[in-house]
């Protein structure tokens, strides 16, 4: 009887969050699945929408662009974030100030970064001004099929790198100093200390950052929608923009739903991979 009452109290405490989960995650996910199985002109559930998008060069191209973007942006951001974290994890005068300056852009919304860099990368903007001063030709950047994706990477990295640096810095500061003293007594140099103490100790943080960053980068939308609409020549058509275009520009909700399901499956696979990667080493340690 007592137990029953406690359960009721627990349900009361949980109810708002459970409703939020149901309405904001499970219901829309279910809607996406059911919409994606409901193809125009086909009676009953079918995989026709999936067949359609996987036969559509536009969708396939957006998958390729998303893959290429992910393969560049994630290692790049994490490498820079790690270098900055190592740099900022030292006794330097005014270290708090330098850390704060790198963290500041994290507060800037993606749409603002997009608008600001959109102006900065114009042919008559400051970046080209600097290039011209050093004798380089004016670059097209966002209107060049070869440079637009790199420009998007710059726009998201300016505000993203400081965020991941914060994770890695926190991870670095949890490494016991004794480990470094021990390996130094064994005669190790700085590189060996990094290779055999820092990297293994940072493994869990690095794995988390890699996965969280990968997921975040799958969802990049504002800079693309604001600056390139996926162009030029589809070179920046990341999957979120492809889904948005299908739903709101082409007015094709069922193929947009199929593409949404593909994205959710992609993201969940990455996250599940994270869990298996983060669980495994602990078992080995024990």
């Amino acid at each position, binding site marked *: 009887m007592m137990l029953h009452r*406690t359960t009721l*109290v*627990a*349900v009361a405490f*949980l109810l*708002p*969050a*459970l409703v*939020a*989960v149901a*309405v*904001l*995650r499970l219901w*829309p996910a279910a*809607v*996406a699945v059911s*919409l994606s199985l409901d193809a125009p002109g086909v009676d009953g559930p079918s995989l026709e929408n999936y067949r359609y998008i996987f036969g559509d060069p536009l969708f396939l191209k957006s998958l390729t662009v998303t893959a290429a973007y992910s393969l560049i942006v994630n290692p790049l951001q994490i490498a820079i974030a790690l270098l900055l974290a190592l*740099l900022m994890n*030292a006794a*330097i005068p005014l270290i708090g100030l*330098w*850390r*704060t*300056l790198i*963290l*500041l*852009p*994290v*507060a*800037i*919304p*993606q*749409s*603002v970064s997009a*608008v*600001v*860099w959109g*102006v*900065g990368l114009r042919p*008559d903007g*400051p970046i080209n*001004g600097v290039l*011209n*001063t050093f004798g380089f030709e004016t670059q097209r950047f966002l209107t060049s099929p070869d440079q637009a994706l790199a420009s998007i990477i710059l726009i998201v990295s300016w505000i993203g*790198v400081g965020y991941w640096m*914060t*994770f890695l810095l926190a991870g670095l500061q949890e490494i016991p100093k004794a480990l470094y003293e021990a390996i130094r007594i064994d005669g190790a140099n700085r590189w060996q200390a990094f290779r055999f103490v820092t990297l293994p100790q940072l493994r869990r*943080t690095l794995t988390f950052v890699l996965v969280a960053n990968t997921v975040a980068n*799958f*969802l990049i*939308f*504002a800079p693309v929608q604001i600056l390139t609409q996926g162009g030029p020549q589809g070179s920046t058509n990341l999957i979120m923009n492809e889904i*948005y275009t299908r739903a709101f520009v082409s007015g094709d909700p069922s193929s947009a*739903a199929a593409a*949404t399901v593909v*994205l*959710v499956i992609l*993201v*969940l696979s990455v*996250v599940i991979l994270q869990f298996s990667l983060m669980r495994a080493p602990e078992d080995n340690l024990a």
Partner: protein
Amino acid sequence: MSRRILRTGVAVFCALAFLLPLWWVTISAIRPEASIFAHLSPPGRWTLWPREPTLVHVLELWQGPFARAIFNTVYITAVTVVAGLVISAMAGFALSVIRFRGREAVFVVMVISFLIPFDAIALPLFGIMRDLRLQNTYTGLILPGIGNGLAVFLFRQFFLGIPKDLREAAQIDGMGWFGIFWRIYLPLSRPAIISAGLILFVFQWQAYLWPLIIAPDPDYKVAAVAIAQFSDFYGVRYGLIFAAAFFISLIPMVVLTAFQRYFSTSVASSGGKG
């Protein structure tokens, strides 16, 4: 010693490189329109310092529709943080302090559901919210921000670290579950409240896709969307765009800098032990 000087030099250089675009935004906001693209090639002393500082853009900006957009963002974010904190603290409390059958199962279901990123299911949710007639309403704008799995997780982890003796003593004194939550656990949870609050704040302040589709009406435009559609409101006016970029970024920068310590710890607890 020279190594330390080199290291300091590189650190300062990197920090200033991250600051540079922000600095450019700030001085461009207080420059006359005509000189925003002047002094760029070759760069000179007036490239990074305003020659004739002026507040015309700032004043015009605040007299126009942007003031409404900033108000919307502040209002929506404030409600999101308060409602989100209440919801996630209550859930975290039930999932860590109250013992009931199926607790672990509820926790697992909640964690897995929240692993679906919001933006990925924003489009199907749009259909649902449209049918509920929540287009162009504050409710429609606020709702997605208040359910946050990471905030629930943070509270749960924090509450698990509070000694059980406190709760048992309160129960012996006849205090109910709500009293224990409100009078004992919450007052002890300042770090968790600030960390979770920051997560909720940043999510809602930066939101772009959702407000773009759920609130096309100018009265309900949020700042992050308004700046991308600036020419619809003000025409192409770069001084105004930079002034807007400055103010949209200023508020979260102040918040983030003030609570930087808590931001790092929230990050550490979710990253290190996640």
